[in-house]
C-alpha cells in the first residue's frame, strides 16, 4: 500500500510543502541570516557579523521589556491557572447552571486581542478616573491591566481543559479515597491534583507561551506607554523594526533572541512537568 501512495507525493504533500517553505522556512532562515546584516530591505543586506547583537546590549528598552515580560508571564501564569482550576473544581460538582456558567466564562476567549485591549482600556481608565489617573500614568497600571485582561480572556479556555481533566478521573479512585476517610482537602491534594497533572502541563505551557508572546493586547491597551515602559518583548521588537530607521538589523537580532527564549521555555517547561505526571 505504501508504494502506491508514495507516487502521489505531488498531490498530497507538495501544495502544503511549497506554502510552508515559502512562508515559513525561507523567512525563518533568511531571518537568522539577516540578524547578522545591516539592511533596510532584503536586497541591500550587508553582512556585518555580530554587531547587531552587541547593539542590543546598549539598548535599555530591550532589557526593560525582557524583565517586564518575564514578570508578566509569571504573574499571569499563576493567576490564570489557579483561578481556572478553582472554577473547574466548582463546575464539576454537578450544581445547577453548570452549562450556562461554562458558556459565559469561555466566551471572552473568542474575542480578538485588539478588541479586548480597547474594551479594557475603557473600563480601567473609567476606574482610574476616580483617582485622577489614566492607564498610561505609570507602567504598573499597564502591567496589572494586562494581567486582568489576560485573566479575563484565558481563564475560560484553561477551565475547559481542567474540566476535561477532572472528569476523566475514575470515580472508583475518589470513592476509595473517601472510604479510607480522606477529607476533601486530602482528596484534592493526593488524588485530584496528581491525576490532572497532564492538564496542568498543557495549561501552564499554553498560558506561558501566550503571555510571553503577547502582542495585540499590549498594543491596544497601552501601546507601550508611558514612553515604552509598558512594552512587552514582542512589541519592543516590532517598535525597533518599524519605529526606528536603521535599526532593522537590531530588531531582527532581538527577534532571534526572542525565538531562542521561547524555545528554551517550551523545552524546559515540558520536561519538568512531564516528569511530575502520574504514570498510567
Amino acid at each position, binding site marked *: 500500500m*505504501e508504494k502506491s501512495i508514495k507516487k502521489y507525493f505531488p498531490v*498530497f504533500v507538495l501544495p502544503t510543502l511549497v506554502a510552508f517553505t515559502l*512562508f515559513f522556512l525561507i523567512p525563518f532562515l533568511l531571518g537568522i541570516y539577516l540578524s547578522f546584516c545591516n539592511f533596510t530591505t532584503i536586497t541591500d543586506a550587508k553582512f556585518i557579523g555580530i554587531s547587531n547583537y552587541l547593539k542590543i546590549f546598549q539598548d535599555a528598552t530591550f532589557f526593560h521589556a525582557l524583565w517586564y515580560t518575564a514578570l508578566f508571564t509569571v504573574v499571569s501564569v499563576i493567576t490564570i491557572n489557579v483561578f481556572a482550576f478553582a472554577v473547574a473544581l466548582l463546575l464539576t460538582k454537578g450544581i445547577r447552571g453548570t452549562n450556562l456558567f461554562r458558556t459565559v466564562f469561555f466566551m471572552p476567549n*473568542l474575542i*480578538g486581542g485588539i478588541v479586548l485591549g480597547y474594551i479594557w482600556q475603557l473600563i480601567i481608565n473609567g476606574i482610574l478616573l476616580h483617582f485622577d489617573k489614566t492607564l498610561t500614568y505609570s507602567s504598573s497600571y499597564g502591567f496589572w491591566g494586562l494581567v486582568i485582561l489576560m485573566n479575563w480572556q484565558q481563564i475560560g479556555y484553561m477551565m475547559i481543559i481542567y474540566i476535561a481533566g477532572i472528569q476523566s478521573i475514575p470515580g472508583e479512585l475518589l470513592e476509595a479515597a473517601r472510604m479510607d476517610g480522606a477529607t476533601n482537602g486530602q482528596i484534592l491534594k493526593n488524588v485530584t491534583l496528581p491525576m490532572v497533572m497532564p492538564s496542568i502541563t498543557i495549561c501552564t505551557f*499554553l498560558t506561558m507561551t501566550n503571555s510571553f*508572546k503577547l502582542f495585540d493586547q499590549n498594543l491596544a491597551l497601552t501601546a507601550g506607554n508611558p514612553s515604552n515602559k509598558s512594552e512587552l518583548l514582542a512589541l519592543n521588537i516590532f517598535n525597533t523594526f518599524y519605529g526606528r530607521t536603521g535599526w532593522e538589523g537590531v*530588531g531582527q537580532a532581538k527577534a532571534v533572541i526572542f525565538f531562542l527564549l521561547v524555545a528554551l521555555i517550551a523545552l524546559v517547561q515540558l520536561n519538568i512537568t512531564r516528569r511530575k505526571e502520574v504514570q498510567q
Partner: protein
Amino acid sequence: MKKGRKAKHAKLLTAVLSIISVIWIMPILIVLQNSFKKKTSISREPFQLASTIGSEGQNAFNRLLFTSRKSFVGLENYVNGIQKTGFFKAFADSLFITVFSVFLIILCTSMCGWYLSRVKNKITKTIYYFCVFSMIIPFQMVMFTLSKMADILHLGNPIGIIFVYLGFGAGLAVFMFCGFVKGIPLEIEEAAMIDGCNPLQTFFGVVLPILKPTCITVAILQTMWIWNDYLLPYLVLNIKKYKTIPIAIQYLKGGYGSIDMGAMMAMLVLAVIPIIVFYIACQKYIIEGVVAGAVKG
C-alpha cells in the same frame, strides 16, 4: 440532615457563580451601553447609563445611574464609525480571508498529514519535524522576511494572503492530523485499496470522513486565530485597499491621533457581535475542539 446542608451548599454556590457570571460579561455590556453615548460622556462617565435629559439636580440614585448631561445619541456613533473605518468592507474581507484560508488549510494539511503518517521515509520524517518545530516560532521572528516575501510574490490582497496563512498555519494543522491519522486502523484503507481505489479515492472516500471530527477541531482553532489575527494581515495586506476587522479598529486610533471614543465603542460592539453569534451557533464544537486540540497540542 447532611443532605439538606449539601443542597443548601449547592444553592449558595449557584448564587455565587451567577454573580461572577454577571460580572464576567459586564465589560461587554459596559461597551454596549457606551456605544449609544456622546464622546465626552464616554470618557468622563463610562459607567453611567445613557440619558436623554441628564441627571444633574436629581436624586442620588439617578445621579449614580445616569450621566449628568444629556448623552444619548442613538445610532450616531455607529454611522460615524462605519463611515470612518469602512466596517462592512472590512467585515467582508475578514470573512473571505478566514473562510477560504481555513478551507484551504483543512484540505491541504489533512492530505499532507495522512501522507506523512502512511509513507515512512527520511523525507516525510523531516517534513514532520519541521512542522512541529514551526509551532513554537514567535511571529516576530519571521514578520519582516515573511511580509517582504509576500510583497515580492504580489500576495498583498485577500486571495494572496490565503496562501500565506496556509504556509504559516500548516505546522499546527499537519501535526494534529498526523496525530489523529495514527489512530485510524490501517485495515480499512487497505480494504479500499484492494477494492481498486487509488490513493485519492481512498483518502476522500474513506479517510476524510473518519477524520471529520479532527477537521472540525482544526477548523475551530484556525478560525479563532485567523479571524482575530492583527499583525500578519497588517504587514502582508495592502492596507490602503484591504482591512480586516482588527486592522479597521486599530486604524481608528492610528489615523486620527486621539481616539474617537464614540466610533470606537460602536466598532467594538460590531466586532463582538459576529463572534457571539458564531459562538452560540457552534458552542458544542468549539468546546470539544478546544479540548481535543489541547490534548494533542
